């Protein structure tokens, strides 16, 4: 049964991936612009532009271009950038590392915050947490991003991201990662508080306390373990927010991650880079979703039977 389930889900996601490849190809080739002219600039004569068009394979019929393209994509060969001839695969990998560092740092901040929330749920600080959660979930990321960027410029000692993965680079990523984690933090904190209110007076918690276990043992071993299931389930559904959020945060903070390469490619009509970026982004989404699809049956076996998870 599990194999049949895995096969169906994999086919489903593969069809989505194929659609992404096709749509990205046709979308970018329908733009009424000539990359050869953009590369050579307005001063180049028409013969020179035609020659470059030929070298880039842009003079071939669209179906031939599509065939060559899908063949290359199947082998994960995204070719060279139209604009500066750099290897697209390597470039995207480098950019992904930056975006992954930002997202990873953001996840760490989220979990640190959740740990803090877990600590103060019984104290008066929970009212402050409620206020923070309310603000974090209400303020749009582009606004909080701009406010954080301004504060960073004025009060933060690190002012730019060099891209060399130095310590300063990681320090620079802290404010944008914080901005990126605001909304998920509020959502997950809400789930945690909800679970806390349910489990706080649960008989098994009361009995563990009565048996003399320390507060920390009860908190992490019994309460935490039960509360984490809905938290992880919610995280799986809101994880794309981290990815889409990086598109805004990277632009605001001038971080050369995957979103900045998209903007740059659009401006430079660098079709191969743009197509590859869209495809890789799509692939990441698919893999994450596929991963969760395989985790769900482990958490809740009823999914395999077609029941409600």
């Amino acid at each position: 049964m599990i194999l049949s389930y895995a096969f169906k889900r994999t086919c489903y996601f593969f069809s989505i991936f194929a659609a992404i490849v096709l749509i990205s190809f046709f979308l970018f080739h329908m733009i009424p612009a000539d990359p050869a002219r953009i590369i050579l600039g307005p001063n180049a004569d028409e013969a020179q532009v035609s020659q470059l068009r030929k070298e880039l394979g842009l003079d071939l019929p669209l179906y031939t271009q599509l065939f060559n393209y899908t063949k290359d994509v199947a082998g994960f060969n995204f070719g060279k950038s139209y604009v500066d001839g750099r290897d697209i695969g390597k470039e995207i990998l480098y950019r992904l590392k930056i975006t992954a560092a930002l997202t990873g740092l953001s996840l760490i901040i989220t979990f640190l915050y959740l740990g803090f929330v877990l600590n103060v749920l019984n104290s008066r600080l929970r009212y402050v947490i409620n206020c923070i959660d309310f603000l974090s979930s209400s303020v749009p990321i582009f606004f909080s991003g701009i406010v954080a960027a301004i504060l960073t410029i004025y009060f933060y000692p690190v002012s730019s991201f060099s891209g060399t993965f130095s310590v300063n680079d990681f320090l620079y990523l802290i404010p944008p990662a914080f901005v990126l984690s605001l909304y998920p933090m509020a959502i997950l904190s809400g789930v945690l508080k909800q679970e806390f209110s349910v489990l706080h007076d649960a008989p098994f918690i009361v009995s563990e306390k009565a048996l003399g276990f320390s507060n920390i043992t009860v908190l992490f071993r019994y309460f935490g373990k039960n509360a984490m299931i809905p938290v992880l389930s919610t995280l799986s559904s809101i994880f794309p927010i981290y990815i889409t959020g990086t598109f805004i945060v990277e632009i605001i903070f001038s971080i050369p991650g995957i979103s900045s390469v998209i903007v740059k490619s659009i401006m430079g009509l660098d079709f191969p880079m743009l197509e590859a970026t869209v495809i890789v982004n799509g692939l990441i989404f698919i893999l994450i979703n596929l991963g969760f699809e395989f985790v769900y049956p482990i958490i809740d076996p009823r999914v395999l039977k077609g029941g409600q998870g």
Partner: protein
Amino acid sequence: MTTRFEKNIYIRLCLVCLFVFVLFSSKVFADPNELVVGLDNSIERLIPIKIKTPQTMPVSMQIFQGLFDLNGEGKIVPSIIEKYETNDNKTWIFHVRKGVFFHKSEIFPDGTREVTAEDVIYSLQRFCSADSFASFLMADSVEGAAEFTQGKADSVKGFKYIDRHTLQIELKRAEQFFINRISTAWVAVFPKEMDDKQYADKSGFSIVVGTGPYKLVTQTENEIILEKNDDYWDEANQPQINKIIYKVIKNDQARYINLLRGKIDFMVVPSSLFSHVFTKDGELKKKISNQYQKKVVSTYNTHFIGINNKKILDANLRLAMFYGTDREEMVNTILYGFGDAMGGTVPKGMNGYKPLVDGNVYDPEKAAKFLSKSAYKGEALELIVHDLANSELIGQIFQAQMAMIDIKIKLTKLDFGGAVQRILSGDNTMFSMFMEYVYSSPEPILINSFASSKIPVPNFVSYSNIKVDEMLENLFHIEKSEASIIECARIEKRIMDDAPAVFLYRQKYVVLYPKRMNGLEINANNHYFFEKIKLK
């Protein structure tokens, strides 16, 4: 459930984070022997023949050097070519400077090697190749250059090797202004090893080998680090600044705040910041003048409203717009006065040029007279604007000024690439555009911009006039530069009588740099001679 222990975990964690933060952030402030330059955009791959953006050139000119260069006054000075000679303006002999070595690099078996005539020929030929952005520079002049660009020849016939330090360039015909075509440091000398296939992925990124006063250490999209070249050939101008760090900070305000906070030392002031930086008299505000000084540079650029002469055939309408445009208002509104109003296209002073159509030629009475003679019926004329160089703002002011003389202008905003595409396709009526001239004399500018043979590129306005074509052709027969420059002024005046475009102004760039530095020289091609800076 909260215990003292659990609280302590968080307190300890916060303290550790704070300690790490303070420890590492203390290293971010600049060294006094370093120069941190704020850039508004990332640079391109550092391959000389591919460079095209104004952001890249000031960086590449620290690493690569041209055959010649312009000094701060716009005079041609020798660089890799020490001297040249010609008897007939058709055959030119170039003598390569001896003792110039490329930067040390892994591409050379012995670490480095001397620049020879072969390197100069190789570089010039690459500039003529089909994948070069600058092939237009020599295509009309050098024997066999156009054929090479079009793939009809294996080499450029006009480049001839004489000996290790001498080469000959044969032109199609005599051209006394030939040197002015290649006087920019953009036409740089680089080793053929940089084009070797084994370095194809590194060349222009981690492998960037020139002869300039600075050499590349590292580069990423947001940061480029150069260090001084200890083996720099120019004894009189050995760099005093050890390291130049370029930081890309795209937001103008953010770059400026970083300057005020001392995190960057040097930046070009964008027009969006003029009101923050200058008083109404154009002087630096006190908060900035305490630490920084300004340098105003008159560059070779022109901003203009192009008119498609094939669409607007009515010369009277074009002349009405030409005289109805108040350039001075544009300069004052957009640039806080940091610009020169222009009636023609050639920047004043270029190779001693004195335009006959000079300054603000705004004359509303003349505009009204020409409009009344025109067949204009009040239809809206489309003006394409784009996202660079204040194009939209220029369009808005132009629209308002035209409304005052009853000409309706409709603005269409496109991205820069889209605007160029519309211009080249001929599907346009008018467009707001700018030119950054790499030539250093008026002749090639006028020939390229207005000769009928140059339609559609780079005669973007499709201007055609047989009489002007004859006058432009005659420039090739003038042997003396002074006489040629005077003739250029006459030709430009004749062209402006047809008003093929409305030329607006030449922008002046304002650079802010620390008071601890003296002797900064900048030329009209935006070459910052950092090696000439003396530290106090």
